[in-house]
């Protein structure tokens, strides 16, 4: 059963009472929230996601709910709870859906030490996975959305979930998070993209999410072998350029973007070492010409 199989009232009931148990790839989350914006966000972005069987395991129990006390009524807020405790400061209630997304990212980045988890966008074409590890502001999510628009399979726009014993990445196809100017850029580049509500005035500015394609969601169980590591850099107005980069530098960039490299000690070192030895590593500079940018990646994938 998938989320779209639930009637609106069934979805609301699950979110308000027993919890909606969603399969997100290698993990499953039980989600609760009374906020209509969360319900609408899930109905749009998670329509094709599988609901886990009643007797199956869920890894995380999260909720986005109003805090106790006066902030329920005056300047309403939303609070993310994980296992019954709060991890972040409350945010304005209008940001409840982005808060759920950030909270789910946190669950994976902070609570999945059986994987090596990196901050990276992950895509795949012809069985070959591409990692785009990058600090914020490097245009990773924009590039990710553009590649998805050109037919790459989305594994994640935010989290590379890697095995330690092989250079293999697990998909977690969830909404792609766009911010500020990149929202209109993607609207123009990908007119058919299903983009959710604009949420202004968040810590990251205005954010909006793009629904992951149904084919990507249907293949949430298919891990892929990492064949490309590309380090993107957005330089306003710069021309598009993809260049080979040494394994050492790629390795260090992967370490910098990891959430739990230190947890794994020697095993983490060996895993990333094997990954950069197996993959082709590139730097990629672009200045906003997305058509040209996606062609450069297509060329890399077919070379």
């Amino acid at each position, binding site marked *: 059963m998938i989320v779209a199989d639930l009637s609106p009232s069934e979805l609301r009931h699950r979110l308000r009472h027993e919890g909606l148990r969603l399969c997100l790839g290698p993990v499953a989350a039980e989600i609760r929230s009374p906020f209509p914006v969360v319900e609408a966000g899930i109905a749009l972005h998670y329509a094709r996601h599988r609901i886990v069987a009643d007797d199956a*395991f869920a*890894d995380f129990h999260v909720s986005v709910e109003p805090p106790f006390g006066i902030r329920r009524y005056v300047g309403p807020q939303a609070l993310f709870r994980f*296992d019954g405790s709060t991890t972040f400061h409350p945010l304005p209630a209008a940001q409840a859906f982005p808060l759920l997304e950030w909270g789910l990212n946190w669950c994976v980045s902070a609570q*999945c*030490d059986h*994987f090596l988890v990196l901050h990276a966008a992950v895509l795949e074409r012809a069985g070959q996975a591409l990692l785009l590890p990058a600090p914020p502001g490097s245009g990773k999510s924009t590039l990710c959305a553009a590649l998805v628009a050109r037919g790459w399979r989305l594994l994640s726009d935010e989290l590379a979930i890697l095995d330690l014993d092989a250079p293999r990445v697990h998909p977690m196809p969830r909404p792609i998070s766009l911010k500020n100017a990149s929202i209109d850029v993607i609207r123009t580049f990908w007119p058919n993209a299903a983009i959710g509500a604009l949420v202004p005035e968040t810590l990251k500015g205005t954010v909006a999410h793009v629904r992951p394609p149904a084919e990507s969601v249907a293949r949430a169980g298919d891990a892929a072998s990492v064949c490309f590591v590309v380090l993107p850099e957005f330089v306003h107005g710069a021309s598009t350029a993809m260049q080979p980069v040494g394994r050492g530098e790629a390795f260090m960039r992967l370490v910098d973007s990891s959430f739990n490299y230190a*947890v794994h*000690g020697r095993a983490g070192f060996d895993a990333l070492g094997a990954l950069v030895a197996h993959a082709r590593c590139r730097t990629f500079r672009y200045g906003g010409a997305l058509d040209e940018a996606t062609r450069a990646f297509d060329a890399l994938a077919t070379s």
Partner: protein
Amino acid sequence: MNAHAARTRLLVAALAGEPYVRDDRGYELLVRSAREADLLGRLAWRYASTGRIDEVPDAARAHLVGATNRGRAQHAAVRRETQAIADALRSVHTPVVLLKGAAYLLAGLPPAHGRLFSDIDILVAKERLGDVEAALMLAGFATTHLHPYDQRYYRRWMHELPPMLHLKRQTLLDVHHTIVPETSGVALDARELFRAAVPIAGTPFLVLSPLDMVLHSATHLMHNEEFGHGLRDLVDVDALLRHFGADPRFWPRLAARAGDLDLGRPLYYALRTASRVLGTPVPEETQRAIGRYAPPLPVRALMDRVLERALAPASASAATRWARRALYLRGHWLKMPVPLLAWHLAFKALRRDVEPA
């Protein structure tokens, strides 16, 4: 059975190596409960040490493996960090006692198995506190809680400096000069703790004597305002008692030492709760000896109920959250006299902090 009691029982049985979960939803509840109680590492160690890890279905086992990985990294980090602390304090020439997790780990004591860490605690003589703090600052540790009120709160009223944070390694260090707040009214002479402390072979550090270690662990459990780690702290008490209790000289001296250090009441509660919740064996003579530290019967009955609820995982029931709020108040009540408490809570409620960027 109440929801909270059932959740505690599920976790306690598995921690004792006698899990009764069989299906995926049972494992889901177990993993979740252990994670909430900060006992996932301990649970993973127990499954591994009893050879039952292969019974666990893949999805649940992944979390046990993750907690094992994290615990291994944290143990290595604590060993490195204590080495750095030893280097930093060498020139101060003062005895340094490791407390709690770091002590269990370096002294090779059973509560260390699978224990997860959030900070390192050390105890030094109060008159050397300034030298110790200066030496640690030179080594890269900086004070936290920069608000002048917080600084004064710790430095004047508490038993420790404001937590220190290493600027590069981001490790947290609590520097104590005694084991109960100065304002708590407990007549404990910290010099007694140093007199009885024992060296850890191969390191420059000391640990509290077995009796004092148990008393500190009991006091930490019963005087803490934050009860989120209550069950974890009780598991420490249990593991220490089972370990030290094997020495025939341990039990007969425990109650008397508690009396000397004015820690009879926390010991009474800790032993009673450990034996009720974890089945910790406490000899009859000790039970009789600590009976004189028991509170009046109605208080005892109330505390039994509150503690039983507060020890359950946080999401178990609303009763657990209410019980923790009650213990939060009790913790503050024990920490300082009423006028000071009123001042402190009023200040905390009214002050407006600038949000950190």
